[in-house]
């Protein structure tokens, strides 16, 4: 029995290919639809603002945040899932990202020190130490600020537009995804090279 459980654990702990992850994301969307809700993680920022008292300061946050309890629990579950997977399901290769050789080369080109086969899941420059540099603040606090603002302005993030919206063939979601890529490409090609080496 124990051997079997270890085999299951090791099976789950392998890196998951895209053709497993993608359909499972659609399954998450369907489970939430079945429970009567629309998949969209970024709405939690609005719910958290409302719960923290923003509902008394601004009309946009005058919502019954308790009705979004289900979504806050999905976010909480994601936190638990992140804990479990990173502590018990890392697999024999450890906590690494299997990025392509081309990506390793272009990272080295802009001054990010990485070695193929030893690329960590989360870069060293994303950590508390990062906050000793302006680049770290730009990536974490700046990134968060843009994500929070942009997601609500556009009415959704990757889960709400790219997955839920495009699955329901919503043209506005396609426009939003085009916007995601326009912004992401601009930063990746013209801003990130200016941030390194740290």
């Amino acid at each position, binding site marked *: 029995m124990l051997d079997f459980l270890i085999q299951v654990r090791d099976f789950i702990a392998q890196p998951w290919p895209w053709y497993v992850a993608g359909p499972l994301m659609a399954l*998450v969307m369907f489970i939430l639809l079945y429970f009567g809700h629309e998949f969209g993680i970024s709405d939690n920022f609005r719910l958290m603002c409302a719960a923290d008292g923003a509902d008394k300061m601004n009309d946009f946050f005058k919502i019954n945040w308790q009705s979004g309890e289900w979504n806050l629990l999905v976010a909480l579950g994601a*936190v638990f899932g992140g804990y479990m*997977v990173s502590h018990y399901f890392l697999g024999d290769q450890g906590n690494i990202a299997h990025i392509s050789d081309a990506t390793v080369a272009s990272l080295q080109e802009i001054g990010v020190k990485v070695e193929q086969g030893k690329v960590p899941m989360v870069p060293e420059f994303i950590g508390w130490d990062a906050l000793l540099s302006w680049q770290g603040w730009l990536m*974490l606090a700046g990134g968060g600020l843009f994500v929070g603002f942009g997601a609500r302005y556009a009415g959704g993030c990757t889960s709400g537009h790219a997955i839920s919206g495009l699955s329901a063939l919503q043209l506005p979601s396609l426009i939003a995804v*085009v916007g995601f890529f326009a912004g992401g490409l601009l930063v990746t090609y013209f801003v*990130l090279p200016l941030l390194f080496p740290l």
Partner: protein
Amino acid sequence: MRMSRYIFVGMLLGFILYKSEAVSWFRIYEMFRFQSFHMFGIIGSAIVSGIIIVQIVKRRHVKNVEGNEITFNDKNKTIYRYLIGGFIFGVGWALAGACPAPMFILLGSGKTVFIVYLIAAMTGTYLYGVLRPKLPH
């Protein structure tokens, strides 16, 4: 107890995005450099599976757990909010290398610094709420 099911859905989400490495800053960088099919495969196969699911739900009039037919609301057909908002979101996505779901997952994995991202994202959301009447939608 009924609410605990949402925690399990979130955990599943955490496993999918962590084991497929979609939570990694490096994978997002790789995607925006078009240097691997991986992220496009995840998003693309999620959309294709999602389209099939939505079509089946619509045609068979699938009911949700409460017995009501599952419906899909059309989004308002405007351009500005999606294009400009999307652009701003994309800027943040490429900078932090994480969209909202991976942020929660990484927070749980022990990367406590993502609390800074979370507070910043709530600030950004609040800022949008304040500026909303003045922005083109």
